[in-house]
């Protein structure tokens, strides 16, 4: 019988981090994944904690961590493990040649495609704002036909941000000659820059409009692969600094991060089963023996000593929302939710309050094991990580990938 030490359910950031940490501990790991997670949607920027209740910005991610509510996953995970997880994440990135910059003691405010700034903790080097902050003059560079980037909007809005208002902005456009064929997204431009010809042609076009020494805000297009070759070649050729903005899906930064993590796991012997729809579990006396996937042909049973449940929240299918109730489909774990559906959401989509529905999820103990309303552990060898956890609104707080990394790590370390 093939038995694994750990079966990780879910191939998003939380699951991949859990698998990485477990492998590092010498465990034999299988990841059961369905779809390729939400990194390519949400992006590869690691938010840890940006805003507190009431919409108050946290001074630093660390300061934010100290002020979260009692039900928040960070409260369960605890500061040391969070720090360790961030260190571990950065170590993998470094090792794979795609290092991230930032730390818990500094809030990084990075430019977005909406001409706003957003607070975050770790970013790839393509989003380093050091030079941007120093610059008196900034070029906002767009690409003709790219329908997901509006440089003049960014320039105009930056003028309204006090710290950025004194800078001078110039909008320049490059024509990547991609107007034939399908609509142009950042992915198309990034793929163009992936090619040697594309990069050379882009450098030529930029030479005419971007003077040496410029700081240039661009959409996230500096190549689809997890390395800094495109950035380095561009900067070297033009003598400029490029800063990618956070932008709408498909997320290039997320694509790079995912590619890197999957490659890392496979190199380290993790088995990844794609299209694995985990539908149920075999549980004996508070211990999970196996989980069962429901293929279009037949069920398959995966035995392991421990299980990490990282199959996402409502989006990923780890939680199912119905009128007045929430279901956790694999283990039928309890989720406390108002039976009156009117109480799930605020009347204003955007306000100074988090959305109640976004905080619905599973209660866990400090080892990330699911607990009931009385705090009693329901399953001894199941550990929960990621978006299915209770108590955080990642959009409002800016904490998404941070909770994924910290909880994934903590789950793997608790096994």
């Amino acid at each position: 019988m093939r038995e694994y030490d750990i079966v990780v359910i879910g191939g998003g950031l939380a699951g991949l981090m859990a698998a990485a940490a477990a492998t590092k501990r010498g465990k034999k790991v299988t990841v059961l994944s369905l779809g390729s997670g939400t990194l390519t949607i949400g992006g590869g920027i690691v938010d840890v904690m940006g805003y507190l209740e009431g919409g108050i910005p946290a001074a630093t991610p660390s300061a934010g961590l100290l002020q979260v509510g009692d039900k928040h996953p960070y409260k369960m995970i605890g500061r040391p493990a969070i720090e360790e997880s961030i260190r571990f994440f950065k170590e993998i990135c470094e090792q794979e040649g795609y290092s991230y910059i930032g730390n818990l003691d500094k809030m990084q405010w990075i430019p977005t495609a909406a001409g706003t700034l957003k607070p975050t903790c770790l970013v790839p080097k393509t989003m380093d704002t050091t030079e941007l902050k120093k610059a008196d003059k900034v070029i906002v560079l767009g690409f003709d036909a790219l329908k997901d980037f509006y440089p003049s909007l960014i320039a105009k809005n930056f003028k309204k941000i006090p710290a950025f208002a004194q800078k001078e902005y110039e909008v320049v456009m490059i024509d990547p000659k991609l107007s034939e064929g399908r609509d142009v997204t950042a992915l198309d431009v990034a793929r163009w820059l992936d090619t040697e010809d594309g990069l050379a042609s882009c450098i030529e076009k930029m030479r005419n409009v971007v003077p040496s020494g410029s700081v240039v805000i661009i959409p996230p297009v500096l190549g689809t692969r997890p390395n800094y070759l495109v950035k380095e070649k561009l900067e070297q050729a033009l003598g400029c600094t490029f800063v990618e903005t956070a932008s709408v899906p498909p997320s290039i930064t997320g694509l790079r991060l995912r590619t890197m993590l999957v490659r890392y796991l496979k190199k380290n012997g993790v088995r990844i089963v794609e299209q694995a729809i985990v539908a149920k579990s075999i549980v004996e006396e508070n211990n999970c023996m196996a989980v069962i996937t429901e293929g279009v042909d037949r069920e398959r049973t995966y035995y392991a000593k421990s299980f990490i449940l990282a199959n996402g929240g409502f989006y990923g299918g780890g939680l199912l929302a119905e009128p007045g109730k929430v279901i956790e489909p694999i283990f039928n774990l309890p989720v406390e939710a108002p039976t009156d559906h009117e109480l799930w959401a605020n009347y204003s989509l955007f306000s100074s309050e988090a959305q109640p529905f976004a905080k619905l999820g599973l209660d866990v103990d400090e080892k990330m094991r699911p607990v009931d309303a009385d705090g009693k552990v329901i399953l001894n060898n199941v550990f929960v990580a990621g978006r299915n956890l209770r108590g955080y609104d990642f959009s409002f707080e800016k904490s998404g990938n941070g909770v994924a990394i910290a909880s994934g790590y903590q789950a793997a370390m608790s096994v």
Partner: protein
Amino acid sequence: MTGPGLCPVSFISFLKRGIEMQKTTVVVIGGGATGVGILRDLCMRGVDAILLEQQDLAYGTSSRYHGLLHSGGRYAVKDAEAGKECIEENTILRRIGRHCVEQTEGFFARTHLDDEAFEGKWVEACAKVGIPTIPISVEEALRLEPNLSPKIKSVYRVPDAAIDGFRMVWQNVASARKYGGRVLTYTTVIGIEHSNNQVVGIKVRNTLTGEVSNIACDFIISAAGSWAGEIAALAGISVNVQPDRGTLIAFNHRITSRIVNRLRPASDGDIFVPHGSITILGTTSASVNKPDDTVPNAKEVVELLNIGEALFEDIRSYRMLRAFAGTRPLYSADPNATGRGASRGFVTLDHAHDGLKGFVSVVGGKFTTYRLMAEKVTDLVCGYLNVKTPCRTAEENLVEDTSPALMAKARLYFPAYGAELAASRLGSEGLEKVIARIQEKPEKRQLLCECENVTMAEVEEAAADSTSYMISDVRRKTRMGMGTCQGAFCTFRSVGAVDANGLSWGKDTNVLFKEFLQGRWKGIRPILWGNVMREMELTRGIYEGTLNINGAIDNEGI
């Protein structure tokens, strides 16, 4: 007579205020189906007219219903007169409005839960008023509409059709404009001016700028629907309109290609109407105090799904897009009649009988008979104005057909499935303008709204229209943001594109983002489960998580 809202003023005081005053013969209040129908009719008869709408055109009940062009079958048993009007108007509209009507035909299906005895009564009543009903076998019905519940007992085909409320209103306006008609949106009426018991003008406020002005006129026609009581009150006149809220659900895809009515006495949740890419299920009926009480709730949605299950078994597996509600303007001389008990026929109230000449309210009625209502009230007003030109609204098409040559040209520039949609939304003239934009900048053929197949060029054209003041106005003209993702992707692009063209109406782009997404949220909040919940995680992830439009313009720590 005097009333609280009545403010007699003289012509001199207008001059003193130095405001350039607009003048017209007739002011029509209300930019819904009836109002635009009246505007068109007046203008076609050569009467100068201005239409006032407090929001955007078709903002009210005319877009907040199921969009069924009734065959009359629904009314045949209870209200033969209404049934007869419906089949007559249905026949006319399918002809003159073929660019906003989709000739889907309809089914009346009796489910296992419905009274068999009613079926015979219904067939008989339809025959009496001239509504053709063709019985077909359940097998045949299931072959034609495979998603129908196999438990249904009997099915009849009727000449129902689907009508797009937004487009129909726009096309009436387009037609009226050709005859000199004028439209002022975001203009709310704050006073009715009169002299010697005769209307002389109207006092209005621009709701966006707050600017107050007067329009001199000889006649005011209130076609304000559920708001008719409030308008009449401005002249101290009582009109007993009871707003009755109907909640509906829009589904993400075409679950039926025909209209499906439940064959039973008219009740809640028994009509499914396919509209282009979506399906609408309606409606509930609940008396409300305010005409703008249009916030639906989860309870109503769950009830609608429970009822709808009898016709479409898998209804819970179909993704909803949003819930929405409108208020029917139910009129009754009897102030105690409400809901489905009140008449859905229409009444023209000549307030000369109340002591004020030059003021008419048209109340009640239904979308299907809007043209007939307009004709009746225009006849009345023309009588006063001594205009003898006969009504021609039933003869002339709302918009001209797009020529085959223009369609062929459009296909060169629009993506697949896009040319026909754009042509039916834009009409010939608009289509040519959008094509010209694409010819000038070929990348404008790209889809700003991928779900509903709307090009950047069309959004820019709609944004440039004089009646557009925000992204939602563009949405109503184009359907952008009304498909699967409900603005998750096109909100960003539309604000970006509009801003890049210098059309952001002087607003901060974050305000535009929030305004549009909050509008979408209103219809999503009551159905926040299943795939809708998933989409909301995505939308919030983009706008709040990644783009931080909520915490925007925050520079702490920099």
